[in-house]
């Protein structure tokens, strides 16, 4: 197997982009006094991995350090305490060995077997975005998020029923513990700017074969305004300050990105204001019809709040020329 080894600090930009996380590791320490630490601990296939020798528990002053991959000596890294290498493809394994030889010829060895796997955590917030929006909505406090873990080896997706998944949010276990075949779960977003979501995957021998952690930000409701043309329909360009009415009247929609889907079935308060005076919506509380009277500018504002979950709400305004 061809292993590409990189000096630390000499990592190319593009290799450095890989996102660390999952892998299958089998620690096999030849000595309990030295060890190899990997960063990331569970790399993806193709990730740049940094291996560091930990020998703080023994006196290695004057000792020689050597490294090997699959028993092939890596002489250019002689006496280096760390090295970087590229993790092999999904399902392939490499054995990294570090050997310390002291001045009297005694040897200590540490070994790591690295078998990277892809472990993807798909985060699907159950919050609102309009059908024309091609991005992913973001979660807000109190909203549901669907989580799916996709584990892949070299032959593609694994049979999930052979693995046990343990989900955690901010280090608290979800669903009371691990579940065999439990590659899906759902959570409710708690307080906090970011949520640390992790999943551990154990094989049938209860060995931890991969772990992934993702940070999920807690967003706010993002209200944007769009013109609904009577003939051509809803514009996909948001109205920004300086919007000019080209006809005598126009319909404006307020679209609350990221509002929890559940909020639509709860007690939702909405309010339109024109120049800070309450205005009546049309038969749809998210739509207002503006009629031109003279010329000038007006500040159009919209506010909403979920009375059942008071932290779910937001407001926005835009200046309209007419």
């Amino acid at each position, binding site marked *: 197997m061809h292993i590409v080894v990189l000096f630390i600090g000499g990592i190319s*930009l*593009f290799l450095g*982009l*890989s*996102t660390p996380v999952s892998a299958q590791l089998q620690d096999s320490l030849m000595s309990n006094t030295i060890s190899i630490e990997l960063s990331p601990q569970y790399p*993806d296939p193709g990730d740049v991995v940094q291996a560091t020798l930990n020998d703080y528990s023994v006196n290695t002053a004057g000792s020689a350090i050597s490294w090997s991959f699959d028993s092939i000596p890596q002489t250019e890294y002689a006496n280096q305490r760390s090295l970087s290498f590229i993790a092999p493809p999904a399902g392939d394994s490499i054995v990294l060995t570090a050997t310390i030889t002291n001045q009297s010829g005694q040897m200590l060895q540490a070994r790591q077997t690295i078998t990277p796997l892809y472990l*993807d*955590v*798909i*985060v*699907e917030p159950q919050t609102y975005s309009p*059908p*024309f*929006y*091609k*991005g*992913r909505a*973001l979660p807000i406090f109190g909203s549901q998020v*669907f989580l*799916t873990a*996709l584990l*892949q080896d070299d032959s*593609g997706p694994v049979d999930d029923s052979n693995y046990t998944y343990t989900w955690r949010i901010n280090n608290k276990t979800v669903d009371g513990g691990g579940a065999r075949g439990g590659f*899906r779960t759902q959570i409710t977003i708690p307080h906090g700017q970011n949520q640390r979501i992790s999943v551990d995957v154990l094989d049938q021998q209860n060995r931890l074969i991969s772990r992934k952690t*993702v940070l*999920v*930000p807690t967003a706010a409701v*993002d209200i*944007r305004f769009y013109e609904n*043309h009577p*003939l*051509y*329909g*809803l*514009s*996909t*360009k*948001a109205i*920004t300050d300086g919007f000019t009415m080209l006809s005598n009247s126009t319909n404006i929609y307020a679209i609350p*990105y990221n509002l929890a*889907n559940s909020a*639509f*079935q709860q007690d*939702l*308060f*909405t*309010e*339109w204001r024109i120049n800070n005076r*309450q205005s*009546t*919506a*049309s*038969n*749809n*509380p*998210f*739509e207002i019809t503006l009629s031109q009277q003279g010329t000038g500018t007006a500040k159009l504002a919209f506010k909403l*709040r979920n*009375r059942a979950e*008071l932290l779910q709400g937001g407001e926005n305004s835009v200046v309209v020329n007419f």
Partner: protein
Amino acid sequence: MKKIIIISGASILLLVLSGIWVYMLLINEPDQNGSMFADFNFFAEQDTTPFEIPEPTDEAATRVNVGATQLRQLTTRPVIGFTEVFATTSVPYQVVYAEAGTGHLYQINMETGEEKRISNTTIPNASQAEIASDGKTVVMRSGFTANNNVILGTLNEVGGLDNQTLPFPIADMVFSTTGNLLYTEPTENGLRARQLQVTDQVTNTLFEIPFRDAEIIWSLDGVAPHYVYSKPSAKLQGYMYAIENNRLQRLPIAGPGITAVANARFVNYSQLFTTEHIGLTFNTSTRETTGTPIVTIPEKCAYQDSTSSILYCGHEIAIYDFEFPDSWYKGIKSFSDRLWAIDLEEGSAQQLANPVQISGREIDMTHMTASANTDMLYFINKHDNTLWSYER
């Protein structure tokens, strides 16, 4: 004693202010929303039933300037979908497009410039159209709510659209080069990609995706595989997969804000790297990833063909920050694009045109399409949804 008075006063003031706040927030409302949201119909109920309108009797034929310059504005109407129809012995080289809101189909003769309406069937609230390469079969999304309908139609001899509302929800749809409808339908936990043979109405499943927030890069001619990536957000991790043997096969592409455009040989993608987006290309043969000089958006790009290393893109030289691509998809951010030809093999980009210099118009390109048989590029200007072409 004074302290007690001050504390009591402050407490009372606080209570009064809290009361006012609660009143303003909860009680002082203009109207009730009632059960408007019970069925999750975000907007008011929309009529999606197609209907016929009478043929115009005195509508003068419109002429489109199809020969003067390389960059041409083909329509003044807002467009939601188009296709190029190649010349045969009986049909001239033409472009067929669907008008936003009405779903009316128009035909532009690309040799004479004559434009005429070829369908008088109105599809109310038409918001998306895909037109097969024969220019006669069309599928349109009617309505812009979550409860929209998808209508499949075929042009008839009298200028109408023989149509049917498809009886299943459709998330994404496109016609293959052979005229089959490729689409995804939501399942309990994900999406199912299917193919509908329009002529005999036979469907078959292509593959399944175990999550719903997915973007599909369809293989229209079967040369490239289908690709899938999680819907982009700069704030969420994304992953990309190729479909091999009807299963997801992970590509070494992951990171926040990922968007991609792919053919059989190259996956060109952009992703957020620290605070800015960068452009990258994954070579499917060598499995190597290299830098691309331009940050691309899939809607703004089209490959010359299914195996070419040439990618045509609209692109503005700008900072693509940590709000991108969310901000562009929301329509908050817009661009004044130039047209580029990127050679993904060489890692170089050549500017083909600067629309502002040529026409004085800013064009935020989307729906980029490269003609398979001619030197034409077609795109919609997101500023006003008009259709444009560029002759290379």
